[in-house]
């Protein structure tokens, strides 16, 4: 292994993999891709990458945005599907 290689595990430590700069900018340090996101997307993504369980995340979203649980569930599922299809959260345990 390269002697000056980073000590982090390969994407397993998702919280270290993603860096947030304010509410609307996130860098994926594994791929080098970076994204402008809406504050709502940033809110969900932050919690996803720190290992929040989907069920728990739905409750957090419902509470935070004062919406009913069914709508929060749909929004979280749609968002995570999109992230997966883009390959952004393929290694995140969601």
């Amino acid at each position, binding site marked *: 292994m*390269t*002697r*000056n290689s*980073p000590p982090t595990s*390969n994407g397993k430590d998702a919280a270290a993999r993603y860096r947030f700069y304010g509410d609307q900018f996130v860098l994926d*340090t*594994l791929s*080098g891709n970076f994204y402008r996101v809406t504050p709502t997307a940033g809110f969900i993504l932050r919690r996803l990458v720190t290992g929040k369980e989907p069920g728990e995340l739905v409750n957090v979203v419902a509470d935070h945005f004062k919406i009913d649980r069914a709508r929060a569930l749909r929004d979280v599922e749609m968002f995570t599907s999109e992230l997966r299809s883009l390959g952004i959260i393929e290694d995140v345990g969601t």
Partner: protein
Amino acid sequence: MGTPVTIAVTGLHRGDNPQPGASVIRSMRRCYPGLRVVALSYDPLESGLYSHNIDHVDAIYLLPFPMKGPEILLDRMRYIHGKEKFQFLVPCLDSEIDNFLTIYPELKKLGITAMLPSKSALDLRAKENLGGFCARHAIPGPRTYAANDVATLSRYAAEIGYPVYVKGKYYEAFLVYSQVDLAQHFDAIARVWGVPVLVQEALFGDEYDVVGLADCDSEVVGSCAIRKLLRTSSGKGFGGIVVHDRKLDSAVTQIIKSLRWQGPFEIEFLKMPRRPHLLFEINPRFPAWVDFPAQIGCNLPAYLLGLLRDEVAVKLERCDAGQMFIRHSLDLVADIAELAKLSSDGEYVAGPLATKAEVAS
């Protein structure tokens, strides 16, 4: 006063397809400010010859083009060494490494040290052999074939399916969509770079680039991986961002071990979603962006100079993900007298003519 540490460097042009020499000098002088540099140049208009900054050169000598062969190169190197007594050599261009390898035993007798790969390692990573190397070592890569004539190359292109890349064995690549295009580009490439000409599956994705240095045991002593952020129309990276990817690091280690490589390298990969990194190219030298990691703790050229001097003068840190570079072009001021002397005499020892006022910049 002892003999100054003097190094000879090639590849000084920093145009739209920048060569690495000026970056190598810049990085080395960050650790060795008193370093004397002899530029070995193929063209009096190589831009780096006219720099008065930290990457300035102290003397310039024109070299015969690589196609002239190793014997003529050796004659010229003997002449230059007789005048400059440089101790170290860092070749920075793909097309010249083969000749330098051939004459290296003679250069060593003159007291010139370099860190070059073995001939077999150099050949294994050559563009025309890279497909076979990937297949033998189960390294994912694009389908690539080499041919000496246009009919064979067309057959390979049809097998892959258009569009395909047509590539020279050293430089240049064109995306072609038809057999007519392919024939035209085959001729253009063969005329400049000779045969074989390569045809390669056209894949599109993010480009990753790893610069590194391997010691004589093929251990990667330091590396830095980036994703290319900005690309010129010819695909050259004009900006990049550091990434941390263990899989990429492992792939590099496997490649370097498999090649039994020693010395500087640049390895280029392509990544498509949900597929592994595909090995695209292995270049036997530092890339033009090598001074970027040197500025953030991973000074590979200075480490190389330390290895050549049998000392460990530099500690290589890991580059932090998210650090990025953006290339910035500048206008250098020169006097036609410099160009005239270099063109006429084939050499130019700058001495007091080169202003040193900006050396610290």
